[in-house]
């Protein structure tokens, strides 16, 4: 179900947005419009929807409009045209009172440089959202304390923010956003100011929190590795528009244009690509009932030295090597079953490449990719896996 739907959204910074909108329709570039009208195009022609419980990542270079897009969702920035619908309600035309309720109850926000209130203790920072709702002191402290514990800061509740390390400060930021129990979390480069190790552990923590809380999260980052790690889907932005939306793999394997291709060029593919992305179609395969001669012929036809064997239900039975098949054929044996080597390397569809590499390096056979029900989905051969690491080009015909 779509939690947030953004339609034809545009944001023009300046006094005369209508001028810029007109030129945009005539396909003028952002730079030209700035020169001609003095208006800055922040966003244009933005369309996307975010599903309930999804982590949706907005990614792009500096100035591409990520923060602007994020701030339109809780109306910290007023969109110029278009609509944003949250739970079926159009918030672009909503009254200030409704927006305030939205910010209080439904949408929490985490900031890049934490933006903690320096004059308030950790607990009072976390309780801020509850305080502005007019919840009594005892109640909000109790609730805030729970969240402080959830993010692992028990014992620090009476400290001031500047006594905390960066990672801890951002936990406070996260706790403050979670305290109102919002459905939606907006996170603007929430981990960018942290050093790499802390950053990685915060990402892991967010993911584990998310599996418990199941929020709808929009996460802004300019780091592709981060985007691929935490995002269910990624929207790549450039110059105020979205150039591609898809899963990490879709974007890696099928970049929409040169810009995307350039962007994804130096990502660490082994972490992102999965078996599914680099496997070949399971062809040829031989059925268990087929017998050694068929297996031998197929291997000859395809110039391979081993072949996967499947049952009638297409479940993986094992592998047969050419030598054994030849021997059996000579001895006039009709049964393939006796030849099948059952202990073959297998991985599942979503095994990341990085975990496949050791397996593939150890075995002399191709690696089978099996679905949850043990049916054979594809096969991995060394060449294709290496190719995937370089170009992301696995093809299942």
């Amino acid at each position: 179900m779509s939690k947030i739907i953004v339609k034809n959204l545009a944001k023009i910074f300046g006094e005369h947005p209508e001028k810029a909108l007109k030129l945009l329709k005539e396909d003028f570039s952002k730079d030209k419009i700035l020169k001609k009208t003095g208006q800055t195009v922040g966003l244009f022609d933005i369309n996307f929807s975010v599903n309930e419980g999804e982590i949706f990542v907005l990614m792009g270079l500096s100035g591409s409009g990520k923060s602007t897009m994020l701030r339109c969702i809780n109306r910290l920035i007023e969109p110029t045209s278009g609509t944003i619908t949250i739970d079926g309600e159009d918030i672009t035309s909503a009254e200030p009172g409704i927006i305030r309720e939205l910010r209080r109850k439904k949408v929490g926000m985490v900031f890049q440089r934490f933006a903690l209130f320096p004059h308030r203790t950790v607990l009072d920072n976390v309780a801020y959202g509850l305080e502005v709702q007019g919840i009594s002191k005892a109640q909000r402290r109790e609730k805030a304390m729970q969240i402080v514990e959830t993010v692992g800061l028990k014992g620090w509740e009476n400290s001031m923010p500047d006594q905390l390390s960066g990672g801890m400060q951002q936990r406070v930021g996260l706790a403050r956003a979670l305290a109102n129990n919002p459905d939606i979390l907006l996170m603007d480069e929430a981990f960018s100011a942290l050093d790499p190790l802390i950053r990685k552990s915060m990402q892991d923590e967010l993911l584990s929190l998310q599996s418990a809380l199941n929020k709808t999260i929009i996460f802004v980052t300019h780091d592709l590795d981060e985007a691929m790690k935490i995002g269910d889907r990624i929207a790549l932005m450039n110059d105020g528009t979205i150039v591609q939306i898809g899963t990490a793999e879709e974007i890696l394997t099928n970049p929409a244009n040169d810009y995307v291709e350039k962007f994804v060029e130096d990502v660490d593919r082994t972490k992102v690509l999965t078996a599914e992305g680099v496997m070949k179609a399971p062809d040829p395969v031989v059925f268990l009932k087929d017998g050694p001669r068929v297996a031998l012929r197929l291997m000859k036809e395809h110039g391979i030295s081993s072949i996967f064997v499947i049952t009638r239900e297409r479940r993986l039975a094992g592998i047969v090597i050419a030598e054994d098949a030849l021997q059996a054929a000579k001895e006039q044996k009709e049964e393939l079953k006796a030849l099948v080597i059952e202990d073959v390397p297998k991985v599942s569809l979503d095994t990341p490449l990085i975990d496949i590499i050791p397996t593939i390096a150890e075995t002399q056979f191709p690696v089978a990719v099996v679905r949850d029900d043990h049916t054979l989905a594809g096969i991995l051969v060394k060449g294709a896996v290496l190719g995937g690491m370089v170009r992301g080009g696995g093809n299942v015909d």
Partner: protein
Amino acid sequence: MLTKLPIGLWVEWIVDWAQIYLAWLFDIITKIIEVLVSSIETVFLAVPPLIIIILMFILVWFVANRKIAIGTAIGLYLIYNMRLWESSIETLALVLASTALALLLGIPLGILSARSDLTHKLIMPLLDFMQTMPAFVYLIPAVLFFGLGQVPGLFATVVFAMPPTIRLTGLGIRQVPVELVEASDAFGATEWQKLTRVQIPLALPTIMAGINQCIMLSLSMVVIAAMIGAGGLGTEVLAGISRLDIAKGFEGGLAIVIMAVILDRVTQSLSEKRKIKI
């Protein structure tokens, strides 16, 4: 050459007009100020000087530190010893009352100027004008509106001492990092909640600096205000000047300096304390 523009005349008209049509307002203001100043005086004069000195010693030790407290006690005793106690209380009442009024007007104006660019643009030139105009000039409308005495002295003092309060309050609020303002908005705070829970607390050190300057400027008006009968230590100094009585003039001046130093140190350590918290 062009004929001289009758600028002075215009101002005269305005003052004339105000004298006639706003007389009721000036009467009310006069009453309020008189009550305010005289009640401060009464309270301070009702208590024996030595007891006040001891109380001040304790109070200052509490809000500042021991060193300043000892200095305060010595300074106040010196004033008492110079037989300037009553004049000093008069001056103190005037300074406290005008500071209170200047803050009462100045802090809201400062907040307003920080929150609206239009107000900012309107207020800033006015402040420049108020600060560069020689303080003596304010004595004229003060006398015309309020006659002679403490009330016009206080009026002139407020006009002279208010600008830094407005400026520094506005500056303090504008200096609150935008991210924090944004964070407050993002959690659905109302404008009032944002102001009272985020902006003012964070601007407090700067606002305190404005309050400190306001007090200092009020004290610096003491002698000038005495020219229109505001009384207090200023009168002592003026008498010293007009009779070329060096001893009297110096003693009066010294008492003013003592008060200035005490008030300055105390307000400063108040704002220091604030800063540590923030």
